């Protein structure tokens, strides 16, 4: 015990001899200011990075498939050309699947989007996920090809949580269900 006392006393006295009190304060101040300039936690890095969605806390994503390019957490992702809602990719699900605890609506609105990888128009089904409160993350409102309320089957401002056990809207998916033929007059 005595030895520990002696050792720490020696270290502290040595430190005091080598440093002025002002110098210590200046060093601590420098560390505090400098440290604040670099986000230290991985969570903060995720939001500060070049996220496609631009939504805080959502890191960029990839399908991993070169024929399905883009970031599924970004409104610019090709399949979202007709979407209106919160991306399930940002809400614990994916562009194809619902977050846990929600139910995919069998009633959907369906359109086509052009895949930039092959230039082909794919038929996309925007199945809503239902059963939890609205996710509130990554709101996208592109609505390309949408028609007014007089054509309800192609209108996106109505709640498509139909045929599910609850009408509570959570988020939207964009599932590829087919390939469209290239033809004049097809919307």
């Amino acid at each position, binding site marked *: 015990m005595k030895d520990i006392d002696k050792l720490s006393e020696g270290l502290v006295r040595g430190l005091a001899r080598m440093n002025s009190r002002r110098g210590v304060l200046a060093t601590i101040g420098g560390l505090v200011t400098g440290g604040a300039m670099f986000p230290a936690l991985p969570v903060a890095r995720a939001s500060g990075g070049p996220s496609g969605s631009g939504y805080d806390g959502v890191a960029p994503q990839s399908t991993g498939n070169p024929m399905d390019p883009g970031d599924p957490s970004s409104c610019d992702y090709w399949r979202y050309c007709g979407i209106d809602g919160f991306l399930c990719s940002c809400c614990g699900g994916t562009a194809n699947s619902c977050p846990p605890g929600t139910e995919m609506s*069998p*009633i*959907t*609105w*369906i*359109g*086509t989007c052009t895949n930039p990888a092959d230039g082909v128009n794919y*038929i996309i*089904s925007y199945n809503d996920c239902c059963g939890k409160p609205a996710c509130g993350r990554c709101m996208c409102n592109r609505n390309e090809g949408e*028609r007014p309320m007089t*054509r309800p*089957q*192609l209108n996106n401002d109505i709640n498509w949580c*139909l*045929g599910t056990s609850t009408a509570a809207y959570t988020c939207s998916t964009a599932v590829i*269900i*087919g390939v*469209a*033929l290239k*033809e004049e*007059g*097809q*919307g």
Partner: protein
Amino acid sequence: MKALGVLVIFAATAAAAQEAPGVESAQRAKMNWMLSCQGCHQPDATGSAGGAPSMAGEVARFLNVAGGREYLTRVPGVANAGLSNDQLAELLNWTLATFDKDHLPADFIPFTADEVAAGRTHPLVSEAAVLRETLRGNFVDDGRVGGAN
């Protein structure tokens, strides 16, 4: 005789290319089904409770009752579909053959663009459901007699 032979071969080829009466391209008809119908009627045409009615195993029965054929051209989903008359007629013929082949009459005459166009000029609105039930009441062939008639 040779000309007749060529004609027969041509007719056979044309018949083989047509997968259903009045359907020029089944692929196009299916695409139009996906884009204009299946969102509400479901991929297998079974519909949903309280929503779009089921057509599977039933839709062609409308052809067997008076007024049923015209109803099919005036029902809102058909009359208001964003399709040309040609493609709408094709889609209607494809739908009948795909989802209710068993009830398709043997002497079925496919819908034409003109017939569809005539129906679309006076589409059904809220009375569609009432008319549907009235027509269904006239279905006689599998014990479904009843309804509003």
